[in-house]
């Protein structure tokens, strides 16, 4: 056994009826909310501070600090971000479909701590089943007294609206999400202000928390922040839901204690990823969503730890790990990721809107055999115009971080696999065609 920490957010997802109120109540559901109402707002906030819960959306910002940027009397809205669209990330998808009441209970605890009367769950539109289950759960929660007026007989009231997205990666960016929730195009807002805590939904102070982040709250309130902080090490506390995909035998989600498991464990352990297909070897892996710079086999022994991965030049990001074996054309992989960013650029900023398209075309030309040796420098030059210095974390020339995320995969491919890219030029096409 890699770690014997009990699961927190996936404790009940194995049950067939985990999405129903009956199944939820039978497994401790809404006990956290009842406990929170007993403890009072200040004590709930103290527990969350003690837990050192980091946001699980991708940026890893401490949830407690997000809450305390303004006095709680000022916060008007809570928005739960369930617009999960970072490629290879599928944890929130699991949580809204398999445990929608946990999302609602977590949101309600957060709203109580913040003193908010109106909350929204922004659920990715493509999660049709998730939307149906969240809506059914809201109906059940109201009837149970866990939502609406005077929750469980207290003086706390909350309405929660399940809001469907309509298909746009950029709406995961919290200011774009708020624009979308206001019924507009998902255009990220100009910063400052950096946080919606200052100017959020309808211009009012707003806290935006990720689905997985709030899903941890019922457990934290029931067991105490100290019990949560006892899991993991350093600033990476608790457990985290990792999404493993690509060339592994057992792709899937794994909830693991933070920092106690290495990438090697996640990818190769028989109880986790189970290793690669027979005869294949590891070429590279992406440690935290496609915005993250890639790692090679030499980084396998790094822990799944936000700080450690950051120090090594990438990020744990959204907690999704993509494995590429030796049959992978890294140029094609970089092209597909770049194509994604180009398609999903909102179009406000020139470096992202135009640069993404140029990069996609150059990569495609190389892959199809029409490339030139100078194209590698051209790629890096265009990347430099989007994120000056092509460093990590990236410098920014754009309103949001979508643009500066484009260079990650390209710079990784050029730095780690320069010879393979040049072979595309020399051989007039992909040397790996037909490898798989």
């Amino acid at each position: 056994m890699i770690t014997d920490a009990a699961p927190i957010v996936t404790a009940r997802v194995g049950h067939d009826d985990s999405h129903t109120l009956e199944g939820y109540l039978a497994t401790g559901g809404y006990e956290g909310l009842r406990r929170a109402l007993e403890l009072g707002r200040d004590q709930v906030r103290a527990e969350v501070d003690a837990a050192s819960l980091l946001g699980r959306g991708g940026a890893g910002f401490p949830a407690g600090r997000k809450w305390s940027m303004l006095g709680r009397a000022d916060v008007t809205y809570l928005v739960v971000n369930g617009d999960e669209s970072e490629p290879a990330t599928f944890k929130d998808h699991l949580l809204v479909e398999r445990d929608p009441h946990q999302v609602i209970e977590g949101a309600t605890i957060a709203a109580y701590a913040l003193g908010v009367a109106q909350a929204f769950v922004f659920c990715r539109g493509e999660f049709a089943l998730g939307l149906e289950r969240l809506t059914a759960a809201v109906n059940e929660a109201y009837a149970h007294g866990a939502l609406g007026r005077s929750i469980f007989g207290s003086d706390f009231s909350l309405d929660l609206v399940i809001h469907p997205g309509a298909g746009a990666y950029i709406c995961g960016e919290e200011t774009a999400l708020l624009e979308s929730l206001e019924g507009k195009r998902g255009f990220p807002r100009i910063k400052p202000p950096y946080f919606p805590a200052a100017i959020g939904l309808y211009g009012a102070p707003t806290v935006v928390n990720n689905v997985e982040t709030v899903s941890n709250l019922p457990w934290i309130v029931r067991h105490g922040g100290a019990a949560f902080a006892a899991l993991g090490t350093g600033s990476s506390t608790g457990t985290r839901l990792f999404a493993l995909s690509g060339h592994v035998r057992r792709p899937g989600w794994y909830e693991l204690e933070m920092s106690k498991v290495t990438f090697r464990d996640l990818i190769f352990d028989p109880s986790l990823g189970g290793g690669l297909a027979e005869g294949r070897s590891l070429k590279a892996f992406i440690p935290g969503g496609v915005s993250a710079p890639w790692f090679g086999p030499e980084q396998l022994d790094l822990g799944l730890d936000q700080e450690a991965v950051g120090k090594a030049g990438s990020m744990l990001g959204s907690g999704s790990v993509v494995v590429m074996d030796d049959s992978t054309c890294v140029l094609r992989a970089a092209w597909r990721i770049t194509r994604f960013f180009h398609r999903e650029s909102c179009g406000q900023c020139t470096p992202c809107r135009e640069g993404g398209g140029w990069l996609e075309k150059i990569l495609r030309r190389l892959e199809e055999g029409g490339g030139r040796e100078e194209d590698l420098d051209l790629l890096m030059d265009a990347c430099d115009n989007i994120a000056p210095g092509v460093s990590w974390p990236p410098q920014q020339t754009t309103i949001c971080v979508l643009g500066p995320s484009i260079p990650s995969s390209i710079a990784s491919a050029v730095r780690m696999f320069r010879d393979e890219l040049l072979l595309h030029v020399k051989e007039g096409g992909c040397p790996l065609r037909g490898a798989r």
Partner: protein
Amino acid sequence: MAHLDDETRRKALATVALYPERRSALIPLCHLAQAQDGWLTPEAMEDIAELVGVTPAEVRGTATFYDMLHTEPVGRYVVAVCTNIACMLSGAYETLEHAEERLGVHVGQTTEDGMFTLEDAECLAGCDKAPCIQVNHRFFGPVDPPALDRLVDDLASGALDEVVPPHGVLCRVERTVGLEAAGAAGVPAAEEAP
């Protein structure tokens, strides 16, 4: 039927009432209109504009930003093949090419009989079942070329009618409680769920 019918209008009014500001209902209303017609007709966009207090051009301008909202007719089944990184590594492009051959259309096109529209999707968050596909936003995976053939057969024969609702139908569950915004005025009382 192009304008919102009585039933859709009833749902639309209930949805508008949930939000502190009615423009927030714009996208949910677009989904409701698509549930009625499969796509956003110009007449439906006029109705939505009136319901949320903007111009029809603002509705169109917003709708065209989003992948799920169609301002032109689509087939009865919108087949979206994810080709992003995790699915690509698992053979998504082979599945997509096979789908083009099998359906006789390119990405973005609809079959002549109006049954299938083929889309090349970005990551659908189904990477543990790569390559994954959504049909009218219901998940299938992993889908290799033989599985795609079976899926198309089952859709055409109606064998999946229970699983896959008509195109445009996003959420088959209706909210029945607290049907007005809390806003500053306070939270509505709970109503009995049926």
